């Protein structure tokens, strides 16, 4: 078997597609390293600036919670550029996202040039190019019959070809990864910690599982179909389906399938809500003033404060439910896209490197935990909490012939010593926890491997090799 592996390996290494893949990998991983280093340094400098500003000027009105730049964004960026770089935390646990998305919204949206993109698009395609004629090519040339006329069993031949494909793909992958790590290691050495290196190793293992699936897929079709060009066409169609069509259409499909209210439906509710919760109650207070039930400015302000507070609480709930609805829709889109092994690989790699949706979720959990500490601090210092939404209200009322300004309550700034102001620290999940988060997607990839391997072996064992 070793002889077959060696022969296959030699054939692949001498092929034009291997040389091109190697060149492309060197260029792409080089670009990945350089771009990531520059971006990471910019993010770190921005983050440090913002965090130091918060520490210098702690506020009880609102505070900012910034996401620490991800050290492994060069491995998997995970859509972080579309996520807010932080949240504004207001009293009563209100979290408002800071602006998100690329600064230049006019530029075409392109996938981030991280390892995951290079692997899921370029490497999967090249594994197909390496394996499409593994069986059908030999059959076309008549060499398959000769190989099998020796004492070597069919299973061994297929295993040898499978191993050769993966080993060939590993050469440019390892070369590229080493180049990228060298650049990162030289310019931002703090990134290469033991935990990060173990995450990178897990990522490489995941890559092997992912590429193995495409190797089995190529061997399956190569065993089933006689003509190599037809095998390649079908494999490319499957690749387009897995790498492009399923992941991309799931976003729009989730909108059709999900039962959560649309953005428009949610937005439409704000007007009537304000009318009912705030202005209708303010009108009633005004009527009570006219009837003489509320006589002093203090009484009116107490009543209006209550109306404004309850209105604000309703609005906060409404914005929260909108955000939850959008998240539900995104989760549905993710789940739909899980039909594709490329999406499974993407989500698993995001979990392993702690980027993407899971990182955002963890950050928000930390932020909510911190919100309790922040509220307790304010209660201790000021004795009350005031919830605020995107809206603020103000009006004036005539009380005893005098115009009185009535406005929604505003949080107070504590004027005393704030040296004990609580600091926000983002938790760092352990590697074991990241692996647990990725388990479902990894299991999906293993199932794909098992099914395709079974089919490939079964097809090859039944193939007519004459």
């Amino acid at each position, binding site marked *: 078997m070793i002889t077959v592996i060696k022969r296959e390996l030699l054939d692949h290494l001498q092929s034009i*597609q291997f040389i091109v893949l190697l060149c492309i990998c060197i260029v792409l991983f080089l*670009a990945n390293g350089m771009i990531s280093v520059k971006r990471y340094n910019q993010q770190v400098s921005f983050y440090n600036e913002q965090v130091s500003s918060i520490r210098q000027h702690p506020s009880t009105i609102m505070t900012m919670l910034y996401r620490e730049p991800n050290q492994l964004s060069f491995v998997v960026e995970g859509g972080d550029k579309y996520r807010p770089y932080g949240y504004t935390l207001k009293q009563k646990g209100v979290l408002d996202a800071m602006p998100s998305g690329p600064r230049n919204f006019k*530029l*075409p949206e392109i996938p981030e040039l991280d390892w995951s993109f290079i692997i899921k698009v370029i490497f999967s395609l090249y594994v197909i190019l390496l394996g499409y004629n593994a069986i059908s090519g030999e059959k076309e040339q008549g060499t398959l019959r000769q190989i099998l006329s020796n004492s070597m069993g069919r299973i061994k031949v297929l295993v040898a070809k499978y191993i050769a494909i993966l080993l060939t793909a590993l050469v440019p992958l390892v070369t590229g990864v080493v180049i990228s790590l060298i650049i990162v290691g030289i310019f931002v050495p703090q990134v290469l910690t033991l935990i990060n290196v173990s995450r990178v190793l897990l990522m490489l293992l995941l890559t092997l599982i992912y590429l193995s699936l495409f190797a089995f897929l190529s061997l399956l079709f190569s065993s089933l179909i006689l003509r190599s060009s037809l095998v390649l*066409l079908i494999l490319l169609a499957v690749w387009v389906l897995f790498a492009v069509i399923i992941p*991309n259409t799931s976003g*729009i499909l989730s909108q059709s399938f999900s039962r959560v209210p649309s953005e428009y439906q949610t937005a439409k509710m704000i007007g009537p809500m304000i009318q009912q919760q705030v202005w209708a109650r303010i009108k009633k207070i005004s009527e009570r003033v006219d009837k003489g039930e509320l006589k002093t400015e203090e009484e009116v302000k107490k009543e209006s404060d209550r109306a404004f507070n309850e209105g604000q609480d309703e609005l906060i709930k409404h914005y929260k439910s909108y955000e939850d609805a959008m998240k539900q829709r995104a989760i549905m889109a993710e789940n739909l896209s899980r039909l594709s092994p490329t999406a499974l690989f993407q989500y698993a790699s995001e979990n392993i490197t702690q980027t993407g949706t899971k990182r955002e979720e963890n950050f928000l959990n930390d932020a909510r935990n911190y919100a309790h500490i922040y509220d307790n601090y304010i209660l201790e210092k000021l004795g009350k909490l005031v919830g605020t939404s995107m809206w603020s209200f103000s009006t004036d009322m005539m009380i005893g012939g005098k115009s009185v300004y009535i406005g929604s309550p505003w949080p107070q700034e504590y004027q005393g010593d704030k040296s004990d102001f609580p600091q926000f620290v983002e938790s760092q999940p352990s590697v074991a926890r990241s692996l647990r988060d990725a388990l479902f997607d990894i299991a999906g990839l293993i199932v794909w491997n098992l099914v395709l391997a079974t089919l490939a072996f079964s097809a090859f064992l039944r193939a007519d090799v004459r």
Partner: protein
Amino acid sequence: MIWTIVKREMLDYMKSAKFLIGLGITVILITLSTIININDFKQRQQDYLNAQQEMKGDRFYVQVYRAPQVLSTLVQGKDRKLGNSLQMTYLGLPIRTSGFMGQYVSEHHRYLAGFEAVDFAFVVRVVLSLMIIFLAYNAISEEKFHGTLRLALANRLPRDQLLLGKFTGGLIVVVGSLLVSAIIAFLIMLLHPAISLKGSDWIRLLLMLGASAIYLVTFYTLSLFISVVINRPSIALMILLQLWIFLVIIYPNMGVILSEKFYGLPSEKELAQRKDAAFQPYEEEYKKANEAFSGAIRSGGRPSTEVGLRNMELTIKRAELSYQVDKEFSNRLSHQMKLAQAISILSPAVVYDQVMDRLGRTGMDEFERFMDGVYRHWQKHIERSKLLYKDRAAYVKAQLPDFTYPSETSSRCFVVTLPQWLILVLFSLIFFTLAYTAFLRKDVR
């Protein structure tokens, strides 16, 4: 003689399994994507119409909505991503639209940013171009490999006629496949009750068909050239696939990365400083006017006409100056985008996208036109707001006209995209000339 070759080539192509599978995949994709996109458009259109009726805004907050483009069902471009709503007051005007929940709140893009759409333009750009490579990679190399090229040329058949025959045969199949896909998409649109196409839309659809044909011919002539130069079909296919990956996936992305690297943008802090500096000459006067205005309110009275008007004029001045800084920033964003396009100009996929986005009214040019209209609408809103202090009765009566902005004519769109059309034609001509010259000089033994 040439027609015999054309007929034989066409028959060969159409009988081949690769053509049938490729066409099958294309037809399925076009059908599904068009239906999904039409349903999405229907929902967006309904939201737009409802918003116009139900979320009109008031005299202070003016709401403007951007209608979804009917041709986005074939070319999504930026249509879904840019948001449909914009809120203006005399205190300020944002430089971009958002979702219905408002600026910085709409989460749609954030949560679903990683998911793109599959549409007609995508199928042509990715799937059909791949199919064309598969059809043509062995047009000459296979004949040479099997020795039939020598036999064919042993007859009284000039080389140029053989190549032209093969080219024409393949061209008819390529354009035919495109036509089949386009007819399916157009028929679905025509028969769907949610879609109503105007005359100008039909012209644009025909232009889209033309641009798609030229794009595919570019890949066809490239495949023909490689097939002439490389003798082994498998190597020809490998080279073509590498070129395809480079031209369709890698190179367009490099354009964006390089433009971001070479064309810097001012930071938010710098923008804020520029805004402050622009308003600096009025700052003192504004403080006084604002103090006088607030003082009048605090004392329970109504500010005098002069105080109110001056305070408003200065507030508007600040909003206008702030908008000018934002507009300048927006122009820089456009320049960065144009640089990315210029860097990627050698990719037929990028050039094709530019033409299709413009034809589908789903590119940034349509958005800029919309935003210019928004600015003019804002000016009218400001004039009306000033009436509050100048002539209250007139203010109460004054109605803002409905928001409109001039649309681009199809002929203008064609003229503007002419350079891109010419680039695609030039690519095809260059590849065909190279293939032709190489074939005339080729050793066919």
